[in-house]
């Protein structure tokens, strides 16, 4: 699998949709998506993580305790255009499924690509949260997404 592995670290200020921000260390080094696994998480309607499976913990490099109660945007990589997440939220808030390719940021600054599907969780007609399931993307879809996202930043 081709991997970017320059090893150079940079400090980047990430601004979130809600106005908050944080400085993250970014390493241009990809961690390959594990074969056969699904990364599963759930959030409340505000995007706060309520459930994380083992694959999520392993790939994000955060502990379960660090993930639960945190906004899902902790995974946001600065190379991802804000408009991609705007599209995600508009889609799921209208009750529809969203699917797309996402470059995620790990705690250690490295990144991993996923094919993500997010669906609203409806119980007795009420929205109680969202489930996000990530699976392994193909290299060609990653290349297409990288090219597209570069134009949207």
């Amino acid at each position, binding site marked *: 699998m081709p991997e970017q592995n320059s090893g150079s670290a940079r400090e980047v200020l990430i601004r979130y949709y809600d106005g908050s921000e944080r400085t993250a260390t970014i390493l241009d080094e990809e961690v390959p*998506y594990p*074969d*056969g696994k*699904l990364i599963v998480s759930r959030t409340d309607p505000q995007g706060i993580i309520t459930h994380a499976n083992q694959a999520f913990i392993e790939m994000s490099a955060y502990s379960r305790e660090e993930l639960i109660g945190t906004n899902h945007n902790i995974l946001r990589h600065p190379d991802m255009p804000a408009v991609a997440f705007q599209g995600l939220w508009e889609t799921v808030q209208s009750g529809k499924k969203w*699917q797309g390719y996402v470059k995620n940021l790990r705690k250690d600054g490295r990144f991993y690509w996923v094919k993500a*599907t997010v669906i609203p969780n409806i119980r007795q007609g009420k929205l109680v949260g969202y489930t996000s399931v990530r699976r392994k993307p193909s*290299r060609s879809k990653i290349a297409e997404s990288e090219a597209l996202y570069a134009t949207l930043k």
Partner: protein
Amino acid sequence: MPFNFTVSPDFAPDHMSGWFYFNTWMQRQLGTDIHLELYDSFEAQRADIRAGKVDLIYANPYDAAMLVREMGFKAVARPAKKRDEALIAVPADSAAQKVEDLMPGLRLATTADPDVHTIGMIMLEPADLDASNITQREYDSYILIAKALLRGEADVGFFLKDGFLELSDLIRKQMRVLVSSQISVVHHALLVGPELQPRFDELQSKLLTMHEDEKGAGVLESMAINGWERMSEEQTEFMIDLIDTLTV
């Protein structure tokens, strides 16, 4: 009128008699008539479900979505420590060493089992393969998929992991596993329809202690199930949500 019980057609043929023993066990426990109807095809079974002819079903997770969300079924139990995982196998001498080595035009041998097929197709995605650029043939059993691979009639086969492990060593050694799913939260479940739901609590308590009784344990063994676990409504909904994300 007896209640009607059925089992997802993906059960292993070797355990068919076990389901009849289980049906007898349930009739004795509940003191009521239950008729077990087994189907060869998923479609025929779904038609009868939609016609309201099923009161109790050991359902695959894919059909559980329709049963719970559209037909008002409730999960009474799930098999303990038994999860549905799929794998992709190739003939042992295949040039493919990983999924990404597979090329468009490949010949896939699969079954009508919706979970295994769905998970299998997801595991082909990293190679940019989907229904539009491969040829598929459906077989009735995992042994027939193995034979198709060994005879050179197919390049890859989708197997339920348990189904693959039940094949003889001789057959398994002539194949190689390219990728195996590790999803952990997708499994079959015993679902109770609206007509039988007044007996839900009673049935659940009998099922959860079934393994403690000598006769019950014998029946479970004949179905290759260790015992039954409680499955909450939220766990059921979560699994259905998850399956929902996999079907797009």
